[in-house]
C-alpha cells in the first residue's frame, strides 16, 4: 500500500462515526436516491446512484468496524480499497456530486448521504485523488487568499467603484461595527454590483459594516476538496478577523457554499462556538423587509422564476426568506414545481464548477438539462437566484444551450428597485 493510500484509508477510519455506521446499516438498497440525483436522472447511468458513490467508504467501514467485514477481509472475500479504485471513484465523488443534498432528502430511512460524501472526500483528498481543478483552487486560497487567486487590491478596487457608484464611504478594518461583510471571489470578479447593492440597502437601513483586508474571502475550497485541516486554516482567517474587530455579525454573501462553510462547518472545524453570529444576506434582507425598510419604488414587470441554491435553502436552512423577497420586487413571480428545498441543483456546486476537464464539463452540461427544462416549462425569460456560483454555472449552461434567458441576482434586483 502506498503511503498516500495509507493516509487516505486512515482518514476514512478516522471520519467514520456513529451516524455513518447507522446509515450504512440502515440502507435498504431501494435506489430512491438515484431518482433524486440530477446526474443519474440526466444520464440514466446507474453508477451515479448517490449511495453507490460511497462504496469505498462503505467497504472501509465494513472491513474495519464490523465483525463480518473483518472476517471477510481476513479470508479474502472482501477486497481492500485500492488506489486504482479511488482514482475511478474520483469522478463519482467530485465530478458527479455537487453535494446538493437532494438524495438525503428522499432517503426513506433518513440517511444523510451528503454527510458521508463530505467524509469520503477526506480520504480522497489526502490520498491524492482530488481533481486538479479543486486542488488548484485550494492551493490558491491557502497561498494567495482566494480560489481565483485574487488579492486585496482587487477587492479595494471593487470597493472604490462601489463608493463611486453609491456615494457612500465604505469602512475597511473598522472595529466595533455591526457587520463584517464577506465576499466570494466570483462576486469580486464577476458580480461587483453585489457590493454596490448591499451598500445601498445598508445605508437605507442604517446598518454599520466593514470589510476586512485580512478576511474578505468567504468561500472555503478546503471543505469542497475535503481537507478539514486546510478548511480550518481558511475559516480561521474570518473568525480571527471578526473577533479582533469585535463585530456582532458576519454577513455571508449570496454564495451558497460560503454560507455552508462559515455558518455550519466553521464552528465544528475550530471546535468551539463563535463570539459572533453568522447571517446570510437574505436573512438580513427579509428581516429588513418585515421591518418595512425595504420599500420598492417600482417592481420588476417581466414574469420570472426563482432558483433556490442548495447550500442556502435545502442544506442551509434559509427556507422562508427568498419567496417573500422576490414577491416584494417582482410583479410576476411564478413558483416552479420543484422549488425551495426540492429545487434542482445548477450542477456545479460542491466544487464541481472548479473542475475543468472535458468530461466534467460535458457531464455538467448534461446535468444542466434539468434546469433548462424547468425554465422552458415555466415559459419565462428571467430567472433570479442568490448564489454567485450558481450564477456562473447557469450562465455557462445558457451559453452551452444558446438560451436567451436573463439571470439576475436577488440582492441586486432588490437594490435596483429600492426606494431612494
Amino acid at each position, binding site marked *: 500500500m*502506498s503511503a*498516500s493510500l495509507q*493516509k487516505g484509508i*486512515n*482518514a476514512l*477510519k*478516522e471520519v*467514520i462515526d456513529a451516524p455513518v455506521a447507522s446509515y450504512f446499516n440502515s440502507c435498504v438498497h431501494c435506489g430512491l436516491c438515484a431518482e433524486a440525483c440530477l446526474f443519474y436522472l440526466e444520464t440514466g447511468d446507474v453508477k451515479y446512484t448517490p449511495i453507490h458513490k460511497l462504496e469505498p467508504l462503505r467497504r472501509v467501514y465494513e472491513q*474495519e*468496524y464490523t*465483525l463480518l467485514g473483518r472476517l471477510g477481509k481476513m479470508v479474502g472475500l472482501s477486497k481492500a480499497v485500492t488506489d486504482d479504485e479511488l482514482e475511478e471513484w474520483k469522478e463519482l465523488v467530485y465530478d458527479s456530486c455537487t453535494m446538493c443534498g437532494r438524495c438525503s432528502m428522499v432517503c426513506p430511512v433518513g440517511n444523510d448521504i451528503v454527510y458521508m460524501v463530505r467524509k469520503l472526500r477526506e480520504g480522497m*483528498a*489526502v*490520498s*491524492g*485523488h*482530488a481533481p486538479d481543478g479543486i*486542488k488548484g483552487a*485550494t*492551493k490558491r486560497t*491557502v*497561498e494567495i487568499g482566494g480560489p481565483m487567486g485574487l488579492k486585496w487590491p482587487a477587492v479595494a478596487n471593487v470597493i472604490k467603484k462601489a463608493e463611486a457608484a453609491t456615494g457612500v464611504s465604505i469602512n475597511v478594518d473598522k472595529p466595533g461595527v455591526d457587520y463584517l461583510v464577506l465576499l466570494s471571489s466570483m462576486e469580486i470578479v464577476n458580480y461587483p454590483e453585489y457590493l454596490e447593492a448591499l451598500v445601498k440597502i445598508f445605508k437605507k437601513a442604517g446598518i454599520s459594516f466593514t470589510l476586512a483586508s485580512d478576511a474578505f474571502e468567504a468561500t472555503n475550497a478546503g471543505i469542497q*476538496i475535503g*481537507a*478539514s*485541516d*486546510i478548511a480550518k486554516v481558511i475559516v480561521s482567517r474570518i473568525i480571527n478577523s471578526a473577533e479582533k474587530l469585535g463585530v456582532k455579525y458576519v454577513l455571508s454573501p449570496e454564495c451558497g457554499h460560503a454560507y455552508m462553510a462559515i455558518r455550519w462547518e466553521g464552528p465544528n472545524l475550530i471546535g468551539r462556538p463563535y463570539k459572533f453570529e453568522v447571517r446570510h444576506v437574505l436573512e438580513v434582507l427579509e428581516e429588513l423587509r418585515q421591518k418595512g425598510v425595504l420599500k420598492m419604488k417600482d417592481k420588476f414587470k417581466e414574469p420570472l422564476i426563482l432558483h433556490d441554491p442548495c447550500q442556502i435553502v435545502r442544506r442551509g436552512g434559509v427556507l422562508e426568506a427568498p419567496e417573500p423577497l422576490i414577491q416584494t420586487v417582482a410583479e410576476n413571480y411564478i413558483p416552479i414545481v420543484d422549488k425551495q428545498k426540492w429545487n434542482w441543483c445548477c450542477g456545479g456546486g460542491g466544487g464541481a464548477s472548479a473542475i475543468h476537464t472535458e468530461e466534467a464539463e460535458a457531464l455538467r452540461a448534461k446535468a444542466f438539462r434539468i434546469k433548462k427544462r424547468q425554465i422552458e416549462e415555466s415559459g419565462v425569460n428571467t430567472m433570479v437566484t442568490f448564489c454567485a456560483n450558481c450564477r456562473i454555472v447557469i450562465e455557462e449552461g445558457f451559453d452551452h444551450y444558446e438560451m436567451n434567458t436573463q439571470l439576475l441576482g436577488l440582492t441586486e434586483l432588490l437594490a435596483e428597485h429600492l426606494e431612494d
Partner: protein
Amino acid sequence: MQGPLIDTLARQGVTRRTFFKYCATLASLMALPPSAGRAMAEAMAAAPAASRRPSVIWLPFQECTGCTESITRSHSPSIEGLIFDAISLDYQETLMAAAGHQAEEALHNAMKENEGKYLLIVDGSVPLGLDGAYSCIAGKTNLESLKEAAKGAAAIVAMGSCAAFGGIPKANPNPTGAVAVSDIIKDKPIINIPGCPPIPVVITGVLAHFLTFGSLPELDKLGRPKAFYGETIHDRCYRRPFYDQGKFAKTFDDEGARKGWCLFELGCKGPVTYNACATVKWNGGTSWPVESGHGCLGCSEPDFWDGGGFYRALSMPADPLKMAATAAAVGAAAGVAITFANRAKKSSAKAAHETVTLADLEK
C-alpha cells in the same frame, strides 16, 4: 376353588370365571408370569375369615380424600372395590362407621393385635411447620401418628402424590412445611403409588401382590411399582403417531384438536410422566385425560404442581422473558466490547493523523 371371597362375589353376582379373569389381568398388568394369576386367585380366594385376614390401617393426613374416592366410589361396585373383602381394613376414617374414641380404639387395637404384620396405607402429606400443628387427629400431630403407626407396620404404602412426594400441600411456597412419608420413615419398606389420584387398579394390584406373595412388587428409583410406572404416558399414548408425524393441536378448539392430534404443544406432560393411564384408563376403562382432549398434567411425578404451567409445552423455554433478557444482556455486553474495540481503532486512526497540508493533496 372355594373360599369366603368367592362366596361373597357369587352373592354379588360376580362369577368365578370373572374373578379369575380379573386375577389374570392383574397379574399380566404387573408383568408377572401367567401362573401368578392363578396363585393370586388362590391366595385371595383362600383368604380366611375377617379375623384372620391381613390387617390394613389407612391413615389420612394432609389430603383431599380424592385417593379414597378413587379407590372406592369410582369403581363401586366393580371388582376392585370388593377386593377389600380379602383384607381387614381396620381403620379408615372416611369409610369406617365408628367415630371419635371408638375409632381411636379400633386403630390402637389393630396396631396392637397385628404388630409387625399389618400393612399401613398413608394418604396425604405430613406437615412439619409449627411443630405439625397444621394437621392433628385425636390431639396428635400427623407426624406423631405416622411414627407410632409405622413402628409396627410390615410395610407402608404411600397412597397418592401427597404421601409419595408431598403433592399439592408441598407446592411452592409450601406453607405447612409438608413432606412425603419417605422423608420421615427410613426403616420400613415403602411403596409409592403416586397420582392425583392414583389409578384404582394400581392400588388393588399392589394389594393383591402383597396378599399373594407377602412382599412388595419391584420398585423403580422413586419407589413406584415398575409394573405400573415403567413406561411414560407418551410411549403408550394412542395419539403418539400424530406426534411422530409432527401433527399438533395448537388450540383446544382448532382443526387439529378436533382430529385428535398430539397435545404436546398445549402443554401435555405425557413425555415425562410415568403412569399407566394410557393403558389402564379410568372409570372402568372408559377414558382418560388425553382421550378426553386434555394433555397430561404429570400428576404422578414429583412436584408436578410447580412444573411451570400445565399449558406450557415441554420444549418451550421455561421463561422466555428471562431468556430474552439474558440474550439482550449478552448482546449488550458484546456490543460494548465491540464499541471499545472500534473506539480503540478510531483513536489509533486519529493518533496516526498528520495535519493535512497542500503537499498532501498531491499524490
